[in-house]
Every structure is written in C-alpha cells, then in structure tokens.
C-alpha cells in the first residue's frame, strides 16, 4: 500500500466530489467544422447529459470554454438545444427549455475558417445550480436558508478532438 500522504492525495479530492455526470460532458469525437455553402465560420461539439434526469437550462449559470489554452469569449459562443439557440449569459432567463438526457445539445464556437486540421485540446467548466432538492419555501420566502440552490456545482471536462 502507498504511503498515507500519497493515498490522501488521491482520496481526499474524491471525498469532496459530488455525484459526477453519468456521461462525458464533452462528447468524444463530436467536434466538427460547420460548412455552409462552402464557407466555414464556426465549429461545434456536443455536450453530454449533465444529470440522470435532464436539466432546465435556466439552472446553468455560466459556461467557460478554452480551446488550445485560449478562453472563448461569450461573443463567439452559442448554446443550442431543442432547435433553439441561447447566448451563454442569457441561459438563466430561459426557464422554458428543458434539456432532456436524449436531447442533442451543443456549443457552437464562431471562428472564420473553423479549427485547422489536427488535434485540439478543449476544456469546459459548467457552473450549475441543482434543479431540485429538499429545501422548501414559496418564492423568496425562506430562500436565504436554501444553501443547496445557492451553491453552484462545477462540472469540468477536458479532451482532445481531432479535425480531419
């Protein structure tokens, strides 16, 4: 058995971890450059289910994306789900959109020419509230004690995509 310190380094982060998503957040091999009438101004990749039961997109407070180490600004990014598109800062306002676990959802990144051929490292962090919990109240009444809805969960993933 490894030393106590070595084992602690491995185990302690796992103890602090909440239940991770059931599927990879970045759907592997899903990145494609989008070609429209022979022109390319964006690429996109799919986002996997974040929960065992689907989520309201209004619970997503922020999405950060880095591609090859470069942070993508909101102005160059759009979330797509159920045939509709949402700028990232607006997602919280859209309580009408339920993202079911079998619904295709993707992030589109705007960039003239798309991504060049080769391998690219994409990292994502999604900040999300719980959809439901055991705190209760009516509207704002009692909400100040509802820690479970005030803390956001950070869902992280990172992988390499290859553009052929």
């Amino acid at each position, binding site marked *: 058995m490894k030393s106590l310190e070595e084992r602690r380094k491995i*185990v302690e982060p796992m103890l602090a971890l909440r239940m991770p998503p*059931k599927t990879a957040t970045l759907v592997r091999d899903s990145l494609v450059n989008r070609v429209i009438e022979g022109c390319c101004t964006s690429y996109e990749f799919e986002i996997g289910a974040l929960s065992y039961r689907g989520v*309201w997109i209004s619970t997503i407070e922020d999405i950060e994306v880095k591609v090859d180490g470069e942070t993508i600004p909101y102005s160059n990014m759009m979330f797509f789900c159920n045939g509709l598109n949402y700028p990232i800062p607006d997602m919280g306002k859209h309580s009408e959109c339920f993202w079911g676990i079998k619904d295709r959802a993707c992030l589109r990144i705007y960039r003239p020419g798309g991504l060049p051929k080769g391998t690219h490292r994409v990292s994502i962090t999604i900040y999300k509230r719980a959809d439901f919990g055991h705190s209760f109240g009516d509207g704002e009444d*009692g909400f100040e004690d509802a820690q479970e809805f005030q803390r956001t969960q950070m869902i992280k993933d990172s992988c390499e995509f290859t553009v052929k």
Partner: protein
Amino acid sequence: MGHVKHSITLYGFGDRYVSGAYTFEDILVKAKKLGGDGIEVVAPQMVPGHPNPSEEWISYFKDACENYELDPVCYSIYVDSGKHKNRFLYEHERLAESIHEMETAKRLGFKIVRSQDALLPTTMEKLLPYAEALGIHLAVEMHGPWHPSAPLFQQYLELFRKADSPYLGVVPDFSAFNSCTTDLILNSLPADCFHKDILIQANECLATTEIPVDEIEQMILNMGGDELDIEIFRAKLAGTGPNAKMKMNIWRTHPEFDGFRDFLKYTKYVHGKFWFVDENYKEKSVMYPQFIKIMKEERFNGFIASEYEGSMFDPTISDEDQIARHIIILEKLWEAV
C-alpha cells in the same frame, strides 16, 4: 405473483439508459421479463419532450404497455425549486405545473403521481379537486433526509387526516429509514488506498448496533486502519465530517417504525429503495423484515416498487440480477412474516 404487488421503477435502469447501453424499449422488455405487476416512470428522465410529450410518443407508450402487458402505475414528477435563480417556485407555479403533469400522467394511463416534499401541504390540498377529477392518487414522496416525525411531514400527515381522501397520500421511500449507507459507496474509491474490509465491518456496526461512532472509529484503528480510513468512514459511511453526504440520516437500529405505520394508512405505493441484495437475499442498508411485517400487519395492499440505486455506486453490477433478487426478497419476507 404472490400476495404483494410489485412495481419496477424504470429509474433502476437509468444509468445504462443515460449512457446509451439500453434503449427505452430494452428497458420495457427487461421490466416484463422480471415480472413486475406494474411500472414507474420518472417523467423528466424517460419521457421524450418532457414536460410536453408528443401525441406520437403517448400513443407509442400506451401501445407498448399493452403489448408487453405492463401496467403503468406510478408517474414520478418533480418540484424543481432550483429552476429560477434566487427563489423557490411560487405557489401558482407549483400548482399549474403539477396539474399539467397530472394531466400528462392521465393521458399516459398512470393511476398514481408521485411528487416531492417541496410541493408543500397547502399547495397539495389545492390539488385535491384536480386529483379527484382525474382519478389520480397524488402522493408526496417521503425521501431522506425527511422522516415521519419531521415537522414538514407532520403537516402532510395532518392534511391526509383532514382530507381523508383516496386521492391524496404519501410514497414512503426507504431512504427515509435506512440503517446505514450502502457498502457499494466504497467501490468508488481506489481499493489500494484504504482498508475496505475494515470499513465494511465498521459499517456493519453502524447498521446493527448502537455502539457510539467514536468507539467504532477506535475499532477501525484497533483493526489496523489509519487516519485516512477514519476520514472515509466519516465522509462516506457515518455521515459526519466536512465531506459527509449532504443531510442524509443514518438511522442505525432505530428507524421510525411507528411513523412509517402512521403514514402507511395513506400509502398506495412504497419505494422499495435498495442498493445491493446479497446472495443470501439480504439488503444491509434497510431493515426489510421489520418494514414488511408492519405492511402486512396494516394490511397494505398497494404496490412496492423495486427501486434499484446501486448502479450509482458500482456500474459493474447487473441491474437485472439485483431487481430479480429484490423481488424474491420481498416475496420471501411477505410469506415469512
């Protein structure tokens, strides 16, 4: 199938459904093969287009239930309190959204709708005329960390007594009565980093004795465990320490049996939550023999759902085998007690 009515909640197959290993049709076939008398569907999990499924899907579901001779018993809905930033749902939202879901349940052929504790008793009371009109039994789930004597559930009990209606009630979930956390939770940690066998023994002490937690910790050290084992014990098993699983109660040998009995009068559907039934047909985390005895004494004639949750901690275990074992355990206990 004996004297107890079995329901299989399709949620038990949820992990493999999410991952794509099973289709919805696969799950219906498995439920049929396992021999449940009825099924439960978790609406936002398996109903495409939730909360507005298409007419085509509704027709497909009803035809599938008929073809596989599956009785749609319980439709599980949620109170999504986190939907809006900085507030819970308002009552008008809880009411309108619940009525919408109850109508959908009716269209799909379900007889029971399971909602959640955050519905609140005052709102549930206002839903009674709709439940009556639809012929739906609307039930609030008593899920851990809630328990019968919790003030919120005492308010629900007061409502059930006052309404005295077959259309309002509760779904007790055994997570509200569990004696210990499942050992499976340890499977998510690397086996070469801690003394798993010692922690399994410690968990047995939690489930079957009232030995104080600090004495169990000393036992862990005496058996050859170390500081990290204590940290894991606190976080994953005893429910203490900074990384403890949020708010869940470990009832050890004294779950609220009398409270369970009180609520059973208003129960048509029990969530037979389980994580692992061993080869001797024992589920360490829930005192099934005692609860089944109470159900028989109270002449319970509703459904017990086999609600498998072990795949959350160990996806290598066969969900089908576990649900089959759970049905057997219920049959054996129902006959024996």
